[in-house]
Structures are given as C-alpha cells and as structure tokens.
C-alpha cells in the first residue's frame, strides 16, 4: 500500500481546516471554541481563550475592528455573528485575577523597540516574556500611542492606565521623549542584537519581507501602521507579534520562514455548506453590552463551521467518532507498526464500503477506496484477523460448491418435445420460449447466492419468465459472484472466482448476464467489464411484468436503493417504474439513489462487527414512516430483522398468499444453505427434468432447538451441519462429557479452524439443544 499517497489523501480532507472567521482574524482567536464556551455559559473559559491569543486582550477586546465578522458564514443566513460584541461581554463577565507568572531570566539578547504604540508594546511584552532584555524608545511621554484616541463607550482611560501600569511593572528600560531618526537608528542597530521599528511613519521608504517583517538581511524588523497601511488595531498587534517571532527565530538562528504561511490573515480551504441552514437574525443588545443570556443566545447562532458532510451521512464514521483525516492517520499507523497491536483493525472492518462518503465529499475523497485498499494490504501481509470474514468466505465457498453451483443451457427443443401440444403452447410463454429455442445461449440468468437463499421459490418462476420473454435462449448459472472475497480484501480468491465466471461465459459463447442482485452488478461492473450485463429489473420494464393482478393494498413506499447500485441511475429508474406500475406510491428518502446508505450488510460489517451493522440498520429504518421497498435480499432481511416492515420487489411481483411478506423473518444461516441447495434441486428436477445428482443434505439427528439457542446459532455463526457433526461424533465415539445431576451432555468437535461445542439432552429419539458455542483456539489434548 502506498502510504505517502494515503497521507496525501488525508491531507486533502478539510475537516480540520479553520472556519473563515478564524482565518480572517489576524491573531486567530479560536472562535468556535470561544462561542461554544459562551453558549454553555462558561464566560471564564471564553475569557481564557481571548487571553491566550490576543495581545492586550482587555484593550483589543473592546476596540477590535473585527475583520472576522464580515466573512462569517452566518452573514448569508441572517447576519454575521457579533463576535466583537461577544468579546466585550466576555471581558465583562469572564475576567478573573490572573496567577502571578515569574519572569524568565533575561539572558537571550538585547532588543530595542522604537515606538510604544500597540505594535511596539506587543513586540516588547512578547520578547520580554521570552527572556530578552528589551529597551523601549518613545518620542512622547507616555505608552500607548494612538490607543489614547480609542477611548470611548467601551474603553476607558482607567483601563488603559491599568494595562500600561502592568507593562511598567515589567521594568523594561523605557526612554520617553526620545525621538529616533535615521542616524540614531544606525547607532541602535550596532548597540542591540535586533531592533523593532513600530513608529507610524518613517523619513524614508523601507522594504521588508511580507512574511518575516525583516528589512533585507539586517537586524531591523518593522510592524504596525508603517507596514499595514491601515488603522486596524488588530493588524497592528498581529504584526508586532509576528515581528517578535521573527526576532526570536533570528536570534536563535533558526529558519525565519518555516511553516509561517498561516500567520495573519489567510484563505481557508474550508468549504462550509449552508444551503440547508435556516436564516436566523442576530440578537440585539438591550443595553450597550450583551447580557449573559443575550450573549449565550447570540453564540448559539454560530454554525461551528466545519466540514462534516461525509460524517453526517455515515454511521460508521460517527460510531468511531472519527473523520477521514484522522481515520487515515490511524490507518497509516496501523500499516506501519511491526510489533504491537493493530488497534485500527476493528474499525477498518466496520466500514460498509458503501461509497456514500465519496458521493458527499466535494473533494471526492473516498474512504471506501482507502479502506478497501487497506483491507487488501492487510490480507497480503497476513494481518487480516481471520475471524472477521471467515464465515462469509466459507459461505461463498459453499455457494460455489456442487451443493449450489450449476450451469445449464436452456432445455433444448428436442428435450422439450413432450411439452409442445396445443393448449400448453398457446397459453404458456415459457413453453413458447422453449419452442423458439435455437441452442445458442443469448442470456445467462445469474441470480447470485443471496437471492436464492432468501427467495428459493421464485427463482424457477423468474427463469420461466425469462425464457418466455427475452429474445434468444436463456441458460442458468448458479454461484456466488465473489462479493464476500472482494469486501474481505481477498484479492487472489477474488481473481480465481472471476476467472471461473469468465470461463463459463466463454464456454457459453459470451451470453449477456441477467443479474438480480445489486452486489453481483457491482462486482461484474468492477471486475468483468467485458461481460454484457442487464439487471432483471430492467428486463421487467422492457418486457412487461409477469403477473397481472398483484396489488393488494395500495400504499406509499419509501425506496431504499442498494448501495452497490449507487452509480446505476437507469436501474433506480427501472425500480421506480415497476413500483408505480404495480400501483404503489413512492416517497423518496432524503438519502436515496446516488446518495443511498448501506443497510448494514455491505463490506461484511454484518460479520465483522454486529454492533456496527445494527447501527446501520436502525439508523436507516428510522428514516421513514412508510414501509420500505428494497431490491436486494440482504437489505430486506436486515431491515425486517431490525423490526421494519420491508418489501422486496419480488414480494410485489410474485405475491404469496400465505405469508405477510413485509414482516417475513429472514431465513437462518442454515436455512440459507438449505434454500440454495433446494433451488438447485428444484431447477434440475422441474426445468431440466434431471434426477438430483447428489442426495439432499443428510437428514441427521432430529433436533429440538429452543428460541434462545436458535439466536445463539445465528449470533455465533454456527450451522446445523456443525451441530450434526458434533452430535455424530459424540454419539458414535462417546466423546463427550456428562452431567449426572442434570442429565445433560456436552460434546465438542473441531471442524477446520473452529471447535464447536454443543450442550444437549436426549428427549426420546430427539436431541434438545441447551447451548452452543465455539472457539478458534486449538486445544492440543
């Protein structure tokens, strides 16, 4: 995995970028935190934030020309936040007696400050604090320069005197009534290690570096009005502070220019989307200063501008309380450590790989791609936890084994001769289709593995429909497309699977695949672009629906699009056409079509982190009052398990009378296996009229499974065939423990990489299961 590229992607994310107010504040007051503290009524904490960033906060807080306010995002929705009024309120309500700080020993060099205005005083105080011997030259007889002109409603003479007394207390040598001119400056430059020039005008033009404020290569630094060419007090203070930083760097002999691009006012890369925000007007002051309540209300209007677009849509990022920039740093760490715990594994395996993040990000940052690549790298380096995907990969192996997998051409005309007699051939589209058979497979119906597991009874009907409606012979191909291997990052297994599919396709002379599962569609698009595919739903739209009178109770449904179909807008339209045609109303979800969410199965989260999967499910099912309509078997099963009435499109196209399909519970893991095998048997027997090749699954012992044990089977990924194997071994080899008090037995058997335990009691001929569990650790008996 290319970690430099990874980190670059992380750096592109603007989640951590400052809001425009902070970027436009020359001293970068942390405005969001500042407002949040006010919002919570913590005026003292807000005060401390001012103290931290603003030179002479008690003065500037009262007279700042607030360049932060005009660009505030709130200005487009009601009016800028009144940041400067809030600063005044904070000075009023949040002040406290500062702790005495002990000055550093003054041993770092001698600096002269020319001009005791705001910029000069800022530079002087900053350098004094850092341990320089500072000497001030001022042409008048007082500190403060034009600050005395700022006395007004807010700033009083007493306040200024108090602040300047605090400066005087620092005991810097100050020469009042001392005018410095060109000649005396030359003299000062020889006497001092550095000189700061903070007078508002100077007798001759000077050139300085806009980042460091250094004049040429000399020891002279400038700031204040001379540099800023405006009356802005905050720019003045900021330039004094920045020049002081340069002087310190210069005298410490470190680079003057390193990472200073974000000093002063800069442009933030943050884009904050206010399109969905309600306008709110500013809170007006009733007197000259906000009351605490008014201040709190005003602070509440702040959007706390930050890019959270992807996070808002993704319950995975929210559950792990992370953002793409931080996530990527964690992945980087996880990829680099050699010894020690890979703490990010769980998180990496909890992403649904649904792709919504990229869709939401205006920079197209795709955590889906990042995480997928990470999984592939983990597998490649042997660092992927086996337990995360083991069950899903075994399930895939099952589907590609002879217990499900099947490839057949359409039954030939010759084989179907007995069906071609008058009433049948005129009434059955299917038989008509057989009659038109050419022997060349134009289409191959590939229902995938999950649809047959959830809808075993409909596969044959769909097949017959296809034979009767599409032009050309239709074959069938049962198997798993490899989505589990893809999600698990198993590149080589995936490639093997793809090669196997390609082989069938070639042998069948390159038919078009008709796909019914959204995961299959995604996999074919990603790995098999050479194969022409069509979705079953598109076929229904083109050829007409199979049954005529489906509708029972007309109702409005909300459509949950499968996340694998995100980019397939034709498919979205086909599904909607079918739903309308069937007589239902549609109310779209906020997150739908290209912005759809994952049901909680994607990325194999369902196996790797059940809690995360549940969070996906419950968030999604809470998004609509209507019954949901889905067209992926897993979406249906998970939503129903999450307590939501959900229809699969097939429930509407092939309605069944005996069950309430919107609440039909999902088949158990074992039933999913059985259903797949059953589909194969049904097709072989009823379409191809072959005798089943393998005996159906061995009947085994008859089991009684109480509900709580059934739940354990599901939660612990234990199949009935595992149970049967344990029991067989226990009964035949007597390898088990017994509990004479309760009459229970406890038996275990290792199968592949898992040891299964079954606790049971015999009830006549049957076995009553009382508990089941498993572990991966191997006991060397």
């Amino acid at each position, binding site marked *: 995995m290319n970690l430099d590229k990874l980190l670059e992607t992380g750096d592109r994310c603007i989640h951590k970028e400052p809001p425009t107010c902070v970027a436009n504040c020359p001293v970068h007051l942390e405005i969001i935190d500042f407002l949040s503290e006010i919002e919570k009524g913590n005026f003292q904490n807000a005060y401390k934030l001012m103290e931290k960033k603003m030179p002479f906060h008690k003065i500037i807080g009262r007279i700042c020309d607030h360049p932060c306010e005009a660009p505030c995002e709130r200005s487009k929705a009601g009016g800028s936040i009144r940041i400067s009024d809030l600063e005044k309120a904070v000075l009023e309500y949040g002040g406290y007696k500062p702790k005495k700080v002990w000055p550093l020993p003054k041993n770092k060099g001698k600096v002269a400050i020319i001009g005791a205005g705001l910029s000069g005083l800022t530079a002087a105080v900053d350098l004094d604090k850092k341990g320089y011997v500072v000497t001030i030259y001022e042409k008048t007889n007082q500190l403060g320069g034009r600050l005395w002109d700022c006395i007004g409603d807010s700033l009083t003479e007493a306040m200024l005197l108090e602040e300047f007394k605090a400066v005087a207390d620092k005991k810097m040598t100050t020469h009042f009534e001392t005018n410095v001119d060109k000649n005396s400056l030359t003299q000062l430059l020889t006497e001092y290690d550095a000189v700061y020039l903070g007078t508002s005008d100077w007798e001759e033009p000077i050139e300085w570096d806009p980042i460091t404020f250094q004049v040429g290569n000399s020891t002279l630094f400038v700031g204040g009005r001379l540099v800023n060419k405006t009356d802005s007090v905050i720019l003045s203070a900021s330039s004094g502070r920045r020049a002081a930083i340069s002087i310190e760097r210069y005298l410490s002999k470190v680079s003057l220019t390193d990472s200073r691009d974000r000093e002063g006012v800069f442009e933030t890369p943050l884009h904050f989307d206010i399109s969905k925000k309600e306008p709110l007007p500013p809170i007006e002051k009733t007197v000259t200063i906000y009351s605490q309540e008014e201040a709190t209300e005003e602070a509440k209007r702040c959007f706390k501008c930050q890019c959270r677009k992807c996070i808002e849509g993704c319950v995975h990022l929210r559950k792990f309380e992370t953002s793409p920039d931080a996530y990527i740093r964690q992945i980087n760490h996880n990829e680099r450590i050699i010894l*020690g*715990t*890979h*703490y990010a*594994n*769980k998180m990496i395996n909890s992403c649904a790989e649904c792709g919504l993040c990229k869709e939401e990000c205006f920079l197209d940052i795709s955590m889906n791609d990042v995480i997928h690549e990470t999984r592939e790298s983990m597998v490649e380096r042997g660092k992927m*936890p*086996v*337990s995360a995907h083991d069950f899903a990969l075994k399930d895939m192996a099952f589907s590609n084994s002879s217990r499900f997998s099947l490839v057949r051409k359409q039954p030939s005309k010759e084989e179907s001769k007995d069906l071609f007699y008058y009433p049948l051939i005129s009434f059955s589209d299917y038989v008509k289709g057989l009659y038109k058979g050419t022997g060349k497979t134009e289409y191959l119906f590939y229902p995938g593995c999950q649809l047959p597991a959830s809808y075993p009874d409909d596969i044959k009907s769909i097949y017959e429909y296809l034979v009767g409606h599409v032009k050309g012979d239709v074959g069938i191909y049962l198997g798993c497309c490899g989505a589990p291997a893809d999600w698990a990052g198993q590149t080589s297994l995936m490639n093997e699977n793809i090669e196997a599919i390609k082989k069938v396709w070639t042998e069948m002379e390159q038919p078009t695949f008709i796909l019914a599962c959204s995961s299959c569609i995604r996999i074919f698009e990603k790995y098999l672009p050479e194969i022409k595919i069509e979705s079953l739903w598109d076929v229904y739209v083109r050829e007409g629906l199979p049954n005529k009178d489906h509708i029972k109770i007309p109702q409005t449904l909300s459509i949950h699009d499968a996340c694998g179909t995100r980019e397939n807008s034709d498919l979205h339209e086909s599904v909607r056409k079918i739903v309308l045609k069937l007589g239902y109303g549609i109310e779209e979800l906020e997150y739908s079509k290209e912005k759809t969410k994952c049901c909680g199965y994607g990325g194999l989260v369902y196996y790797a982190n059940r809690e995360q999967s549940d969070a996906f499910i419950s968030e999604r099912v809470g998004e609509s009052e209507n019954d949901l309509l889905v067209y992926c078997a897993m979406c249906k099963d998970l939503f129903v398990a999450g307590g939501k009435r959900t229809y699969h499109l097939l429930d509407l196209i092939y309605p069944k009378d005996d069950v309430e399909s919107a609440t039909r519970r999902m088949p158990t893991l074992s039933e999913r296996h059985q259903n797949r095998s059953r589909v194969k048997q049904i097709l072989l027997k009823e379409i191809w009229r072959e005798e089943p090749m393998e005996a159906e699954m061995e009947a085994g012992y008859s089991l009684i499974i109480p509900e709580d044990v059934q739940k354990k089977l599901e939660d612990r990924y234990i199949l009935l065939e595992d149970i049967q194997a344990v029991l067989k071994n226990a009964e035949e*080899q*007597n*390898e*088990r*423990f*017994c*509990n*004479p*008090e*309760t009459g229970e*037995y*406890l038996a*275990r058997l290792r199968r592949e990489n898992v*040891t299964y*335990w079954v*606790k049971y009691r015999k009830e006549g001929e049957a076995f009553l299961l009382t*508990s089941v*569990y*498993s*572990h*991966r*650790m*191997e*006991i*060397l*008996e």
Partner: protein
Amino acid sequence: MKQEGVDQVKWLCDKCQRELELAKVKVRYMEGNFEVDLMKCPTCNQVYIDETLALGKMKEVEEGLEDK
C-alpha cells in the same frame, strides 16, 4: 486464561466415567502457543471448556493475537 467457576465439577468424562482434573494443557492459536490450566479427563485427556471461558477470556486472547 484459566478455568474458573464451580460449574465444571459436575461434569464427568462420559467415555471414561471419570471426574475431571485440573491439568496443564497446551493450546495454540496462530503463532501463539501457551500452557494453561484446564479441566480434563485424566484417562482420555478430553479437555473441558465451558461457555464463559470460550466466549470470554479465550475470545479475548484470540482477538488479541489476531490484531498482533
């Protein structure tokens, strides 16, 4: 990792009809090999693992090793 609780005393090895005894047993997962005290049949060496141990401490150790 060790067997706790009182539950296990009730169980006998069904094959040998013997009471279980605490003994050092070798267990292995991925690159980890340990010796732990577990209950087992002194005759046929069948080792008893209860549900709490399997889903508690044992799982924790498994996950720890998987994340190494």
